[in-house]
């Protein structure tokens, strides 16, 4: 398998001395669906900025399909498509012109660019808006426009920085579907997201960054397998006393909501058996939080990352 992106010992110190990246290493294989997670200010956008040459690095190397951005920047850029976090298109230009011009910057002939613009505007449900100025679009439409723009030169690697921020659930799911299809077509996808469910649903591999350090870099299945405890929330018949469940930690949140900590070695069946013997009926059950979220919180603590080994 080819390496799509290879980052070694990447450092970035901004003017004023803020150390945004403290020597990170990352490898993304061709065809991967890769998540870069981290809290605000962790260094996600700086990493993406350096890869796409919007941020000057302080030290380290970045290679895109083997092309070093220090020696073969234009070649490296030609493989990348970027969907940034902030809207960064000309708000006064019609959608069609935004897309066709962007394709032109990559050397795509105008005739072909117009065909591709039509294809992506239709796929992303923006065709009716093709002659409208960018500023006339809703937030979700603007996000889709930026995805269409990033695809105009048919990049091998698509980088999305918080692509579904501020997008409603229905639209988010349709965007997930679209990104999955792109990945199935062979496009390597790297995304940063605050929605951990999004990373869990879409990505095969994951890196967690905190305070400019990669604190975890592994495949999603292995990461989730390390989770040794989940909290489930049960909606139960009204009760005044906290049910006693042998072997389980429980908390009665209100008279009909019970939280139960379940270790990896324990069986959920045992909870129901014990509740049944106490004549307590369960109306419904859910996870307290997303599984990845629990891991994320445990990995990204205040200052904890400073002491973590870099994987």
């Amino acid at each position, binding site marked *: 398998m080819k390496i799509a992106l290879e980052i070694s010992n990447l450092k970035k110190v901004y003017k004023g001395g803020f150390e945004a990246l403290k020597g990170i290493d990352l490898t993304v294989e061709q065809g991967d669906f890769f998540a870069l997670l981290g809290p605000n200010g962790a260094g996600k956008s700086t990493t993406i900025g350096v890869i796409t*040459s919007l941020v000057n690095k302080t030290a380290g190397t970045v290679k895109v399909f083997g092309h070093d951005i220090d020696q073969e920047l234009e070649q490296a*850029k*030609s493989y990348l498509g970027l969907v940034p976090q*902030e809207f960064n298109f000309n708000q006064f230009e019609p959608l069609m*012109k935004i897309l066709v*011009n962007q*394709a032109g*910057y990559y*050397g795509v002939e*105008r005739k072909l660019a117009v065909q591709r613009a039509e294809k992506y505007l239709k796929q992303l449900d923006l065709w009716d808006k093709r002659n409208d100025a960018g500023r006339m679009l809703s937030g979700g439409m603007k996000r889709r426009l930026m995805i269409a723009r990033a695809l105009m030169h048919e990049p091998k690697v698509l980088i999305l920085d918080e692509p579904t921020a501020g997008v409603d659930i229905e639209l988010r799911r349709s965007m997930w579907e679209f990104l999955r299809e792109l990945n199935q077509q062979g496009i390597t996808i790297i995304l940063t997201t605050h929605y951990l469910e999004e990373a869990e649903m879409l990505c095969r591999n994951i890196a967690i960054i905190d305070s400019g350090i990669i604190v975890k870099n592994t495949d999603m299945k292995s990461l989730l397998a390390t989770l040794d405890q989940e909290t489930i929330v049960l909606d139960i018949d009204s009760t005044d006393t906290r049910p006693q469940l042998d072997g389980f930690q429980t908390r009665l949140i209100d008279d009909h909501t019970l939280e139960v900590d379940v270790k990896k070695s324990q069986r959920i069946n045992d909870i129901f058996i014990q509740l049944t013997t106490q004549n307590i009926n369960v109306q419904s059950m859910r996870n307290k939080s997303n599984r990845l979220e629990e891991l994320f919180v445990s990995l990204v603590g205040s200052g904890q990352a400073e002491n973590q080994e870099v994987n």
Partner: protein
Amino acid sequence: MSSKVNFIALKSILHKEVHRFMRIWVQTLVPPAITISLYFVIFGSLIGSRIGEMGGFDYMSFIVPGLIMMSVITNSYSNVASSFFSAKWQRNVEEMLVAPVPTWVIVAGYVGGGMARGILVGAIVTLVSLLFVDIQIHNIWVIIATVSLTSATFALGGLINAVFAGSFDDISIIPTFILTPLTYLGGVFYSISLLPEFWQGVSQINPIVYMVNAFRYGFLGISDVSLTLSFSVLLTFIITLFIIAMTLISKGIGLRS
């Protein structure tokens, strides 16, 4: 990247730039025509008739080349300054920065856009001036060369201004406090030879004097300074400003953090 890819990228930037100023033609093309008409009415017809001849020509004919050049300078500069700064401000300059567009293509595209507006406005102003005066042409090639080089010089200046600008105020400071005084003192409305000797010497450090005079030579065949010196000044400015613009954009000054 191949020269074909670069050529398509250059065409795209040029297309975008020309489309931008054509889309807002009421703001970009109409005001110079109105301003120049007022200059002709006030300085040409009303005051000019009392001034009499200058450099062997009636005053109206004398000021026409300078007024055209003034429009070319202002529009070439402000087109690139406002367009590139807007692209920075809206961050759509990143569309070019993430693409494999060489720096020289970005510079050439924006300068080309500035030249297109400068020369188009120059042509409009020339047409307006035909309503007031018969224009004679002494050497068309000098006219074309001067207008093209001057337009490129000030388009480069506008680009450098936009690179450093941090707010919309910053792109109006240089036109207001530097360009306008230099233009008014650059021999648009008078012959340098009318000035006392000291001020004639001072005028020679004003680059616009050379541009206006070379342009006037193309129309009337008269100039306060030598044509060779005028073109040398223009080429020196273009080369210097081009190197500065290339260096700034390559290093990402004002563009990359």
